[in-house]
């Protein structure tokens, strides 16, 4: 069927029955809070009809005509200049890859350093003297005990013990600084404003860059010498030639690195200064996804959501002893009635790494079985892709606890065929943090 040129490509390329070559689109990257991902096999991957925010990522068309409602980060023009392929993601027009391509971008990040625009993520400041105690009523983590200049991973839980979002929480002396997921940020802010009495300020005049990889420290130290002294999960506010930078030694790739909040006005200049290093390449969301998957890190909307509990998700480590049964500030967060017993007794299913045999990726939605002919699925894949560093497909998913031991052999149904897959330890690639 010929494609009429007048029609925008995101309409013409995806009639309901279209199952041919699907070009770059955000369907696999943009996750929603609702849970329509649990479809079977390829229907969940390529057979879906159009979504309001879906796009085929065809180049050569004016972006204005394609994505009228999408927001842009301060680096939008720079992404275009660098030749990025832009796709809609969580309401933003974001770079999914640059001319290097996902595979090489991924490998470059592990070998040297990659620069990511993560400005779509939400930056929030909680003020007031009791912000930490307040936030503990929504997040099962030790925030009161978080030292000044330190950062910690945490979860917003709901009354059913599911996960509303995952976030980073930094103690910056007289306030907390939070970074939350792009797709969840409006809901997170509303949730905090409805439930906390402390001031909740959305930071909307700053971009967020992630510089990740073994060369990140040396590169950033040229601009911010004190970055070298930071340890994993330290946070500082640094004066620089690019204004005040809010820096944490963290990231979401499994590599050493930094996340840097910079004013929108200075963001492009800072990005250019970092990219000027031979070691630094711009990296898109495609490689960000494969990097975090190899590192065994959860993508909200895929691996964790309102239907998964922290214990099931293997995130018990984010709930410190003081918030558990017997701790000084035990409970007092949404869903504690479920979470506290689960922390003691375990959950009936668990998130695991999955190593498919052969080269075919097992993507999210793939049903898992405990036998080649077993009738009922015992679990499903929540993230799956090809891992460029490990040079084989890697997946994560949920299986019954009895089948969660590394080495357990299962089957995933890919395109109607049962393919062997083995439960594997996470991460697939060892973490390379500066402790």
């Amino acid at each position, binding site marked *: *069927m*010929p*494609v009429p040129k007048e029609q925008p490509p995101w309409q013409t390329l995806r009639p309901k029955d279209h199952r041919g*070559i699907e*070009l770059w689109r955000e369907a696999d990257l943009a996750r929603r809070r609702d849970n329509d991902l649990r479809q079977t096999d390829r229907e969940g991957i390529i057979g879906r009809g159009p979504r309001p925010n879906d796009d085929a990522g065809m180049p050569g068309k004016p972006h204005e005509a394609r994505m009228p409602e999408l927001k842009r980060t301060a680096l939008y023009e720079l992404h275009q200049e660098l030749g990025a392929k832009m796709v809609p993601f969580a309401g933003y027009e974001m770079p999914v890859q640059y001319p290097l391509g996902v*595979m090489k971008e991924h490998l470059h990040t592990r070998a040297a350093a990659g620069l990511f625009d993560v400005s779509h993520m939400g930056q929030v400041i909680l003020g007031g003297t009791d912000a930490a105690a307040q936030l503990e009523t929504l997040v099962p983590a030790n925030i009161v005990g978080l030292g000044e200049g330190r950062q910690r991973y945490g979860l917003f839980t709901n009354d059913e013990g599911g996960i509303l979002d995952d976030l980073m929480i930094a103690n910056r002396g007289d306030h907390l600084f939070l970074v939350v997921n792009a797709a969840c940020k409006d809901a997170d802010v509303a949730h905090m404003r409805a439930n906390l009495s402390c001031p909740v300020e959305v930071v909307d005049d700053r971009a967020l860059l992630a510089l990740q990889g073994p060369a990140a420290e040396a590169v950033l130290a040229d601009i911010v010498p004190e970055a070298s002294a930071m340890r994993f999960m330290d946070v500082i506010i640094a004066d620089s030639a690019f204004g005040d930078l809010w820096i944490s030694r963290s990231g979401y790739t499994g590599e050493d690195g930094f996340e840097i909040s910079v004013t929108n006005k200075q963001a492009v200049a800072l990005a250019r200064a970092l990219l000027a290093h031979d070691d630094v390449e711009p990296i898109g969301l495609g490689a960000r996804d494969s990097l975090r998957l190899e590192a065994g890190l959860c993508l909200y909307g895929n691996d964790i959501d309102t239907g998964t509990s922290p214990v099931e998700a293997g995130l018990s480590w984010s709930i410190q002893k003081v918030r558990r049964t017997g701790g000084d500030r035990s409970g007092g967060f949404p869903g504690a009635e479920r979470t506290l017993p689960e922390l003691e007794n375990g959950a009936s299913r668990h998130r695991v790494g999955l190593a498919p045999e052969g080269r075919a*990726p097992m993507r999210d939605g793939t049903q898992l079985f405990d036998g080649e002919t077993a009738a009922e699925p015992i679990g499903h894949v929540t993230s799956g892709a090809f891992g460029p560093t490990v040079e084989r*497909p890697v997946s994560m998913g949920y299986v019954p606890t009895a089948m969660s031991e590394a080495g357990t052999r299962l089957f995933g149904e890919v395109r109607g065929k049962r393919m062997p897959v083995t439960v594997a330890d996470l991460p697939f690639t060892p973490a390379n943090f500066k402790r």
Partner: protein
Amino acid sequence: MKFTEEHEWLRADGDVFIVGITEYAAEQLGDVVFVELPEEGSDVKKDDEIVVIESVKVASDIKAPLDGTIIAVNDKLGDAPALVNEDPLGEGWFFKMRIDDASAVEALMDEAAYKAMIS
């Protein structure tokens, strides 16, 4: 060389046709990591999904461009799926097929028409 709306190319090779995907499609798909090819000798109907191609982020199908019989497949893609990106019009071919009605190939797009479609 002839082209389909599904971004395939067909090139005559004696009395059969070699089929692959275009440079444009290969570039759009991104790095190809896995290709599943049809059985040699299988009869296929136009629009049957006969090849599965997995790139770093998406699974796609390649459809049979016309009715016919698969007479050979490119086994090199099993170990080297990246050939699809490196040389889509050459070493990255997918299969050779005998087409039932060879005159139907003439009705497909020529290069100019394909270029107009993707521009």
